[in-house]
């Protein structure tokens, strides 16, 4: 109890200094949490597009991005006919621009695609999709920023398209996208006879390994992955995740420097007091534990405040229309745990030098210290 009192007393002596350190950790944690959660949300949405009513995704081997993947129609036809396959849907991804919006994602899909079938149609309905080559269905947010409604003609890229309906999905990417008939998309993006991916629904999920094996042997240029495997191994996701953690990590390093500064100042200003503790029988380990205890309290309070701030920030960002569907406020407990542990580790690292300094203080000299 006295040990804890010593720790808290030391922190309370210089409240402003301690608060600044706590704030440093808190902002770092909030930044890390926000960036990682938004990116995980984005990754989750992208995965959601691919795993819509399917378990397996087939795409071109060794492509850096699915936009560059070309899966031939012959592969689609053959895979569709395999006995373990319930249905296989081709999807073509493309990026186009319109007058005020540099990037709009286009999804070239067939009328039987789950995205079309299962979406909530705000205007129009799925039965008229893909009847004409210039027909498109707009995601709700895409319709908003293009200022279009069903029946309008909208310029997309170098073409003019007829809006046959507006649909709503829970997925931010899809909500901000344009759905074209597959053949129109192939023509528009000069990818006749191919799709970016094939999403496969199996009759029995246990056949996943068999299907992957057959794809590997029959189509050496293609790769089949289960949805979870894809999310784990897709290089773009890896880069995004690594970037998010790196950005957050840099923030934490800065926060850690703040803790180190606080702890160094804290030790320097009570050299005599540390000598008194030593004279009263405190071991080097006990002194180090006291210093580490102080930094751990700062880090823990910082992490706690950061989690609260980050969650509030995510709640605010969730209200921003442009980020609709990207922000999932339900923070992954694993992310939360990692962030807290990183904050504590940062605090401990920041206290290493101050603790070592405190352990080196010679009582007999320090007692003469004014």
């Amino acid at each position, binding site marked *: *109890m*006295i*040990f804890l*009192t*010593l720790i808290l*007393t030391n922190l*309370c*002596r210089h409240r402003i200094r301690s608060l600044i350190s706590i704030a440093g950790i808190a902002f770092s944690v909030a930044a890390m949490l926000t960036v990682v959660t938004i990116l995980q949300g984005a990754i989750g949405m992208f995965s959601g597009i691919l795993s819509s009513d399917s378990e397996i995704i087939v795409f071109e081997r060794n492509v850096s991005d699915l936009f560059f993947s070309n899966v031939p129609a012959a592969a689609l036809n053959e895979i569709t006919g395999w006995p373990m396959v319930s249905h296989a849907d081709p999807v073509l991804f493309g990026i186009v621009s319109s007058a005020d919006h540099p990037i709009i994602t286009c999804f070239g899909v067939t009328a039987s695609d789950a995205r079309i079938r299962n979406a909530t149609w705000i205007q129009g309905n799925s039965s008229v999709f893909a009847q004409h080559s210039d027909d498109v269905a707009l995601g709700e947010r895409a319709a908003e920023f293009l200022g279009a409604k069903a029946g309008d003609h909208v310029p997309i890229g170098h073409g003019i398209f007829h809006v046959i309906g507006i649909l709503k999905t829970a997925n931010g990417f899809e909500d901000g996208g344009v759905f074209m008939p597959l053949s129109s998309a192939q023509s528009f993006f000069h990818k006749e006879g191919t799709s970016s991916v094939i999403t496969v629904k199996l009759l029995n999920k246990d056949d996943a390994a068999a299907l992957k094996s057959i794809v590997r042997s029959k189509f050496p240029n293609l790769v089949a992955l289960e949805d979870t495997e894809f999310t784990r191994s897709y290089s773009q996701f890896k880069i995004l995740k690594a970037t998010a953690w790196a950005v957050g990590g840099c923030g934490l390093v800065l926060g850690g420097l703040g803790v180190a500064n606080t702890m160094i100042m804290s030790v320097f200003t009570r050299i*005599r*007091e540390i000598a*008194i*503790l*030593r*004279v*009263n*029988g*405190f*071991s080097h380990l*006990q002194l180090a534990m006291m210093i580490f205890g102080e930094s751990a309290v700062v880090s823990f309070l910082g992490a706690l405040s950061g989690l609260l701030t980050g969650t509030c920030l995510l709640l605010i960002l969730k209200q921003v229309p442009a980020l609709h569907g990207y922000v999932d406020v339900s923070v992954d407990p694993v992310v939360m745990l990692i962030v807290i542990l990183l904050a504590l580790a940062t605090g401990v690292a920041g206290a290493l030098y101050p603790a070592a300094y405190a352990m080196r203080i*010679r*009582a*007999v000299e320090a*007692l003469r210290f004014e």
Partner: protein
Amino acid sequence: MSLSGAQTGNLGRIVLSAENVWKSYDDGAIAVLKGVSFEAIEGQTVALCGPSGCGKSTLLHLFGGLDSPDKGHVAVNGTEINRHCNLLRLLRHEVGFVFQLHNLIPDLTLEENCLIPTVAAGIDRRTAHARLQQLADRTGLTHRLDHRIQKLSGGERQRTALCRALMNKPKILLADEPTGSLDEGTSVLVFDLLLDVVATEGVTLVMATHDRGLAQRCDRLLEMHDGRIHESVYAR
């Protein structure tokens, strides 16, 4: 030299001893102790007198294991300190320190300050509080236990320092000018209390002081000058 279990005839057991102790600072430029030899017997009160810089505090620091001699032997309870295998045991259980500037932690309460040695030694809460209550009763500080150090008078602070030094029941109390920062009246009161407590607890007191009046009330008075003990007088 055999220090272990040393006896001094019918006087009692030797608990502190220094034999031909030399100590200098700044690579020998400042010689503080020049061959000091000294012994203190269990329960004895010893005053070290002499001018500033004569080596009184340095000798106390050597006895408390805070510093080590360049040459010679210092022993506490028969164990040489410079070969003491456990300095922490010495500081936690065998010696207690009282300084001229009380050296209390100002932001803690009297009680918290006194409990510090028990935390260091890992003594359980109940035992520690019972001991504190006992010492606070004896030093008249019971009503001040939850007061912060800033709120205490000089005499109360020094009495608190005395309580803290005795919390773990050490057998030796090293006091470095314990009344040096107090006025004459308070000095006498604190010193009376100091003598009373050490007598009750059976503690050996070695005290550095400039106050000859107080020094003469100890069992022995040692005159130090230029790093040597020149005269040892049995004051009482």
